[in-house]
């Protein structure tokens, strides 16, 4: 999701790394690049400004200029400040006595209704008993949409045509209490933050039901306006957390930084697909790692455990930790990836791959994956286990056998090496050290 941004930062730090010691001008030049990257990633310009001030304040001067490994220091500072900006992973609050009310609100089309269903499913998986509340009387078929999702998931939906949203939500809480439901989730209508009447409506729902969570559901593709929207919802209604949807695309998601910065509330959940199970808890460390081009090995493993058999996932994890990860595993991983879901979403999680796929479109990416597969398949088992033995003549043979070029074979081996390097670093758990190695 932060692909291009990570690439930018990497390129900046590649440059710095080669030069050895940094001076003030170098830092400024790097930060100019960081600024461009953040703006292109839709981080609000004011947020960018304060972010850079913080990084610069720490980067120029003692720490960096006297450091033996300046690149390492700059990366560390950018990393730390991004982590600080993204904040802690938010956990959902629970009411002292059930039911816990959760209100979802946001602009039109941001993904509230879908998120309501996802959240209900998420809670039920944890043994809770959620009730969905159809509090959008305006959009054509909004109630039907929630009812269909409820039916599909076998989760009850509370709907009362003709009853105003605030009264309806209050009734739903009462109903949930008597029916022994643990949670009520209000799916409110989409509204503009400048719509007086509709903002008053959600304020009234809040007043009448006192929800434990008021979550602003926002589209990850949002641009500079995210700040304004988040500020208004925060001031007029008060929010307790953010949900960022549509992160399965290639939006760089800078809006997350912006909204988090202006509201001070944590990002609690992220939406990564249209299906009801495509909801994840937010992990600032993972997001930051992605920003810095680390790939997201941990998310990948977690997903792998859900969708492929546990044994293989455990083995993969063990291999990653011990860095005995060979081309056979690389191939295996690619194939499992294919089964796991949309390609881009997954590819972003594989170190090395997201960068490799930067300039290719999706069908090209598919082609490229196929070609990589073909190249590995043309290798002997020994070559797959010990890629270091693959010299010039073997490369030519593999290229011929797979109907590709030597350049393709070289590329695959480079990608593999890159992935391996990152995985070793991840397994060691020492980010700056690894970054330093990569960038020097």
């Amino acid at each position, binding site marked *: 999701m932060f692909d291009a941004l990570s690439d930018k930062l990497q390129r900046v730090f590649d440059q710095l790394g080669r030069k050895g010691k940094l001076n003030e001008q170098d830092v400024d030049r790097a930060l100019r690049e960081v600024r*461009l990257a953040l703006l292109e990633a839709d981080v609000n310009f004011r947020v960018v400004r304060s972010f850079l001030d913080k990084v610069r304040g720490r980067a120029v001067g003692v720490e960096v200029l006297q450091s033996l490994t300046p690149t390492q220091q700059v990366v560390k500072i950018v990393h730390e400040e991004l982590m600080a900006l993204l904040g802690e992973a938010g956990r959902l609050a629970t009411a002292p006595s059930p039911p816990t009310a959760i209100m979802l609100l946001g602009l039109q*089309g941001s993904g509230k209704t879908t998120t309501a269903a996802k959240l209900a499913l998420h809670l039920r998986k944890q043994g809770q008993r959620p009730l969905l509340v159809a509090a959008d009387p305006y959009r054509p078929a909004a109630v039907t949409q929630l009812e269909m999702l409820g039916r599909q998931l076998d989760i009850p939906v509370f709907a009362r045509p003709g009853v105003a949203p605030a009264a309806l939500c209050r009734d739903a809480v009462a109903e949930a209490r008597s029916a022994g439901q643990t949670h009520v989730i209000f799916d409110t209508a989409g509204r503009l933050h*400048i719509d007086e009447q509709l903002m008053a409506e959600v304020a009234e729902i809040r007043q009448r039901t006192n929800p434990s969570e008021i979550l602003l559901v926002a589209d990850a593709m*949002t641009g*500079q306006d995210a700040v304004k*929207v988040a500020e208004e919802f925060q001031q007029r209604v008060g929010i307790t957390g953010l949900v960022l949807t549509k992160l399965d695309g290639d939006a760089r998601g800078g809006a997350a930084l912006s909204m988090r910065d202006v509201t001070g509330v944590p990002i609690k959940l992220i939406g990564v697909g249209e299906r009801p199970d495509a909801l994840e808890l937010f992990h600032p460390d993972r997001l930051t790692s992605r920003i810095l081009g680390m790939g997201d090995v941990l998310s990948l493993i977690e997903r792998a455990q859900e969708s492929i058999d546990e044994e293989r996932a455990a083995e993969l994890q063990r291999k990653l930790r011990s860095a005995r990860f060979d081309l056979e595993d690389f191939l295996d991983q690619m194939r499992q990836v294919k089964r796991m879901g949309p390609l881009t979403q997954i590819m972003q999680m594989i170190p090395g791959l997201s960068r490799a796929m930067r300039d290719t479109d999706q069908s090209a990416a598919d082609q490229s994956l196929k070609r990589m597969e073909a190249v590995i398949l043309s290798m002997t088992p020994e070559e797959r286990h010990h890629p270091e033995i693959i010299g010039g003549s073997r490369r030519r043979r593999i290229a011929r056998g797979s109907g590709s070029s030597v350049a393709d074979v070289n590329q695959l081996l480079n990608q593999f090496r890159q992935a391996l390097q990152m995985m070793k670093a991840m397994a060691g758990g020492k980010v700056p050290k690894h970054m330093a190695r990569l960038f020097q």
Partner: protein
Amino acid sequence: MFRRFLRRDERLDEGVRKTRSSFFGRLAALLPRSEITDDLWGELEETLIAADVGVDTTERLLERLRARHAAGEFGTGKELSRGLQEELAGLLRPPDGREPLLPSDLTVVLTVGVNGVGKTTTVAKLGHHWSRSGRRVLLAAGDTFRAAGTEQLAIWADRVGLPCVAAQRGGDPGAIVFDAIAAARARGFDVVVVDTAGRLHTKTNLMEELRKIRRIVDRQGVVGRVILVLDAATGQNAVVQARSFASAIGTDAIVVTKLDGTARGGMVFSVVRELGAPVCFVGTGEKVGDLAEFDSEAFVAALFALEAPDDLPGN
């Protein structure tokens, strides 16, 4: 160029006026009275960035303005302001000699875009608009994926009194388009507006589904048009979206929705430049009448009516 099919709609003007009066434009306030200083250039850059114009396009614009300034074209902030507005409007002006969006022959308009941008609502608005300007319009509910996607369009069709071809959830959108074209021929409709499921441009299989729909339209020997719907609140990702949809099935025109909010949709400058396709309409609300013919001058003026980035006193 599409104007001859349209009656002038007042709504964009209203929307723009509302924006102008509710948000006292920082730039509008700043430019006329100021000297052309470094600070002013900085403010200009910031204002364009804040409107989602994007770093690249902003820099290219400012470079051109600087060149014009160096040539002595602008004496005052006011002249500079006018220069910038001209440049901006120029970017949105479609090249001459494009084919009309809606020729008089049977035309199938595919409405595409990422999730939640306003496609279904726009289909209803367009259908209503074209039918009021004398075309015989049929709607087709091609979103068989999202819960109640079909029901949503059916309700709209009912409200605006247009017929709508639909199928069960999970049905094949290609088949619906096929049926709609057959129905249009049999019953004498000359415009079919097709709603499609929202899809992220990165999903290969879903983009392939669009290509398939497009092939079905082309094979029927009818005029096919693709309208890309963009949400005004979207940032730079809109450019990638546009590029992907255009390369998958082509794009003839763009609709920018939700311009009634505070987002100014500045990313369309890059999009239009990239695609060479014009913005034809804008969405200014959730009601069926909240559609306006695109007017590049009004659009650019609205950019300049941006809310002050740092809340100036007296707003």
